[in-house]
């Protein structure tokens, strides 16, 4: 059957539509009358090429008409992550209350798309990094803040053993904090273009205070409104699962209570560290040790600093098109938290 890729696309020099057609024909038995329309490359993801389009076809199960998003690894990216792991996580989340997009197909080694790619069903919604401090009414913003935390609690509630996620993700057990440090120290050694003694000082502080985890949960790894879609006053999707892993429950909580990114995660006087922790404890039944949470706050900044250095490394190597400088704002925040200690 000749290719039936539709014409209603913007220029497609990467041949994404043709690649997707091939993938669908390979993965879906008995595809007929396949039509791909409305291909557009969109911005938004800092570490992946994102393309949206619609796919319609007929097969033995009937007629299909799906809005899709294709996420393809670029030559350079901020994060070196495994598509296979992300795909496994998304599949595991499908039967859960977590608002994750449905993952349809994986091109793990890039045999079809040229580089590893993931095809997901596109979810309706708007992405706004600062939705909690937007011009929406206070009740709506407060409701969204609680809805974000509810999503986080649902993520931690995922029975990863039952979904066999430990087959795709490594279970660090009680050593989750040390495992997280090891993973990101490896990245630091790989990407640092110059000595950064500030990060060595903080790394030592973190290693000397790393605690053992009491339980292991699914961790999103970059949980923020900037990685979510909102429709009205509800969250329609939590996106970007590329850094999801098994780890300590305070890791994501440390990310959202991190003072450096309060404008994204918190609402002054209404939804700050104290309220977030109280709501988390009420929802999970797990008390939060303040010193331990501060450890994860510092780790969040340190990890983010390493990601910034990865951006520098890739930019200098000519594989990334955004300039990153010394993460001075993170260095100051970490030093301040270390000096002040737990609140």
């Amino acid at each position, binding site marked *: 059957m000749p290719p039936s890729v539709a014409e209603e696309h913007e220029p497609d020099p990467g041949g994404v539509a043709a690649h997707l057609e091939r993938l669908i024909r390979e993965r879906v038995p008995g595809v007929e009358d396949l039509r791909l329309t409305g291909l557009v490359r969109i911005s*938004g993801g800092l570490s992946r090429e994102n393309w949206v389009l619609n796919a319609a076809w007929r097969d033995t199960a009937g007629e299909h008409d799906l809005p899709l998003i294709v996420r393809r690894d670029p030559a350079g990216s901020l994060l070196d992550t495994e598509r296979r792991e992300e795909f496994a996580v998304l599949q595991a989340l499908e039967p859960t209350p977590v608002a994750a997009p449905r993952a349809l197909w994986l091109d793990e080694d890039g045999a079809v798309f040229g580089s590893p790619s993931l095809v997901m069903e596109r979810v309706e919604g*708007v992405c706004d990094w600062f939705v909690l401090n937007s011009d929406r009414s206070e009740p709506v913003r407060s409701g969204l803040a609680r809805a974000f935390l509810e999503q986080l609690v649902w993520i931690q509630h995922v029975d990863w053993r039952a979904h066999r996620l430990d087959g795709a993700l490594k279970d660090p057990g009680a050593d989750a904090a040390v495992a997280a440090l090891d993973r990101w120290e490896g990245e630091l050694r790989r990407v640092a273009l110059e000595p950064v*003694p500030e990060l060595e000082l903080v*790394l030592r502080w973190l290693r000397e205070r790393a605690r053992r985890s009491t339980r292991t949960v699914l961790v999103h790894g970059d949980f923020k409104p900037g990685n979510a*879609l909102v429709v009205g006053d509800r969250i329609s999707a939590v996106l970007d699962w590329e850094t999801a892993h098994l780890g300590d429950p305070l890791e994501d909580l440390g990310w959202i209570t991190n003072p450096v990114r309060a404008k994204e995660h918190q609402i002054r006087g209404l939804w700050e560290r104290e309220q977030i922790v109280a709501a988390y404890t009420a929802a999970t039944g797990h008390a939060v040790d303040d010193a331990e949470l501060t450890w994860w706050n510092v780790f969040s900044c340190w990890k983010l600093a390493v990601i910034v250095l990865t951006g520098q490394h890739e930019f200098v190597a000519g594989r990334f*098109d955004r300039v990153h400088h*010394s993460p001075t*704002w993170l260095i100051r925040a970490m030093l301040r938290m270390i000096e002040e200690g737990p609140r």
Partner: protein
Amino acid sequence: MRPTVAEQLAGTCLALERVVSPEIEGTPAAEVLRGLVKNLRMLETSWAAILPFLHWDVAETATLLGRAREAAPAPLGARIAEALDEAPVDPLDVVAVDVRSDGLRALLSEVVVAIDPTSPEHGAIAAHFDERARRYPMRMVPDVPKAGG
């Protein structure tokens, strides 16, 4: 020297914004261009501060290393002494000063994990890191992607 470095950077930004940007508006390339122009604008005002900053940082780092030398393990202390005895580099050669800075900061990376973290020497280093971060001349907050579906 006209156009000055700042004038050349400013002119480049203007051309990119007036000529190139309208041609690619609405495409992912426009977002990339905005980030690059923002960075050039930052360099326009900060490039002249880089050499003075490096001189200040090298001098402060050398002082801190000198103070920490006795508290460091002997082999590291010996390498610190050796580094501090090196002949000064051409103060107008920004590349040479930058290399010197890297050498001293590499030693400082070892010092901060070797000496007592409660010692005054360690505290002085942490205080310098904070001050250095405050004075760092090249800083730019990348734009957050616009809200969209």
